[in-house]
């Protein structure tokens, strides 16, 4: 009875998208996350307009470790490069690599999960056991060994990270597809002779969207963190390309003298990851009103 009431409540007045936005907006932290991310994305997009790439990469011994000034807002690093420029160009790298890897793993994991969840039985067993094996290896270690085997390059790094998080997506998609498989509307579709592909694309995937979107958002944050970690140990983005993790690595020896040098990339990482996690959380609540009430 109350279920029905709720159904009625969510109706009228606002469209579905409007409703989701309305609920999302109420989560202040998620909203802050979204704003942070938008600012970060705009900065990354217009980076060339703000500061030249050269400033972020060209080494200049005479400018080593300068404190913040009007010319260098965040000062310069041990190689004389402008930290602000590197942060902004680093955002470009982090965001694009993070988003691209996650979409790649979403594609792989999503397909595997949807197929496993929909068909069940042996198909499910085989695919998911394979995913379990991947899952048993810590993702960073897995990525490390893939990069170590294939050589350090941006493509290899992305591939490694994408493979490492494929099982997470496979599991989430499978778990959201499985209950839908037995829904009566899927059976209704079968009763009309609908093809499997159409059932999956039209009746199942759109309804499994919520958890997938949430997972994707949070995983982008994770991917950025992983890239930075790998770069920090020298296996990620290769110098001189600016990247937050390698920036941290560059200045780690000067932490005592110049804490700001460490703080800038550190805060950039924290803010971005925080933003993605908050947005993911906010989306989860907004897409699934049951959790909130």
């Amino acid at each position, binding site marked *: *009875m*109350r279920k*029905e*009431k709720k159904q009625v*409540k969510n109706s009228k007045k*606002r469209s579905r998208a409007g409703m989701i936005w309305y609920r999302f907006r*109420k989560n202040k932290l998620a909203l802050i996350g979204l704003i942070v991310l938008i600012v970060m994305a705009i900065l990354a997009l217009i980076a060339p307009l703000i500061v030249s790439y050269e400033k972020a990469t060209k080494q200049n011994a005479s400018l080593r470790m300068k404190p913040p000034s009007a010319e260098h807002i965040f000062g310069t690093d041990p190689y004389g490069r402008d930290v602000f420029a590197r942060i902004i160009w680093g955002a470009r790298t982090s965001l694009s690599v993070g988003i691209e890897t996650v979409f790649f793993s979403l594609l792989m994991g999503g397909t595997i999960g949807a197929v496993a969840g929909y068909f069940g039985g042996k198909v499910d067993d085989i695919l998911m056991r394979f995913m379990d094996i991947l899952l048993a290896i810590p993702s960073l270690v897995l990525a490390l060994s893939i990069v170590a085997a294939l050589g350090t390059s941006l493509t290899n790094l992305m591939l490694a990270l994408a493979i490492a998080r494929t099982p997470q997506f496979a599991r989430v998609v499978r778990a959201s597809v499985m209950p839908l498989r037995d829904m009566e509307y899927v059976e209704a579709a079968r009763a009309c002779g609908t093809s499997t592909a159409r059932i999956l694309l039209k009746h199942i995937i759109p309804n499994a969207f919520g958890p997938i979107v949430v997972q994707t958002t949070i995983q982008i944050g994770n991917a950025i963190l992983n890239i930075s970690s790998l770069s920090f140990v020298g296996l990620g983005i290769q110098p001189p390309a600016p990247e937050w993790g390698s920036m941290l690595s560059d200045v780690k020896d000067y932490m005592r003298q110049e804490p700001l040098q460490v703080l800038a990339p550190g805060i950039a990482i924290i803010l971005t990851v925080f933003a993605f996690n908050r947005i993911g959380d906010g989306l989860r609540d907004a897409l699934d009103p049951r959790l909130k*009430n």
Partner: protein
Amino acid sequence: MDEEKTIANPVLEVSDLEVVYRTDEETVYAVNGLSLKVNAGETLGLVGETGAGKTTLALSIMKLLPERIGFIENGTIILDGINVTKASPEAMRDLRGEVVSMIFQDPMTSLNPVVTIGEQIAEILELHKTTLSKKEREERVDRMLEMIGISPERKGEYPHQFSGGMKQRIVIAMALACEPLLLLADEPTTALDVTIQAQVLNIMNSLKERFKTATIFITHDLGIVAQTCDKVAVMYSGEIVEYGDLRHIFSKDPFHHPYTVGLFNSIPNIKSDAPRLSPINGMMPDPTIRFKGCRFAERCAHCTERCENEKPPFVDRDGHQVRCFLFAEDGEASSKTEVQAQ
């Protein structure tokens, strides 16, 4: 005054109750000015369809409305002399189980799956009947199980080892373990098969007689009402539209609310040979809108302008109350009563 008390001693007295559910999106007016009385040992059938406010009423009595959403806006609920609307959470905890218990529709979710059924019944006794010794408690548990037709030897088993009908019987045993004054049964048999439903109803009837528990039986099924209740209140959209003894409600005379008549005509009856059912046209009004007049007006065949603008009063004939202008003393519509009789 005193005399009246001894004759009819109300266990529960609800007056002018108004309950709303308020969310960010909207306000649902679930119960709109409802008054009723339940006397000791009496079974009141609360009949109505989805959204009539039956469950909301029961939750208000238990003070278990969803927090931060459900609010009692107005009115009082006097339970065994205590005003529930003003009672503290501690006082309510003492009342629940001891003075009032509730049975829910789904027996599967009312039992804790990892605790044996014997322990679950004993736990309630432990909370409320603190004077009982452990041995006395165990004896009481055995007796309760026997009464619901489950062998006391099975008290060490877990809920999943019982069928749906048995689980609902166990829930009933739990609800009655402390011999409460009032039992709220919210569609307790709706999830069960007919033959099992008959068994459960049978047990409820015999337990009620034995413990003299006053009961509010919430149901949408007029058949169950006929078989179990003494008094009936027909609810529609948060209001009581008709109230009376069982014989009043099931009488063939034309003094009935049009909704009650519609309800009777729309239920399939194995005893009737009518080839078609006569449904009530339209559907329940939007609960987020406040009404000036009769809530049933838009579906009613006898609707007049007055019905839309003015709340009809209860017309009382011999304890049988109908809330409709058709029967009002000053009513213009009294000539229509015959039409309604069919």
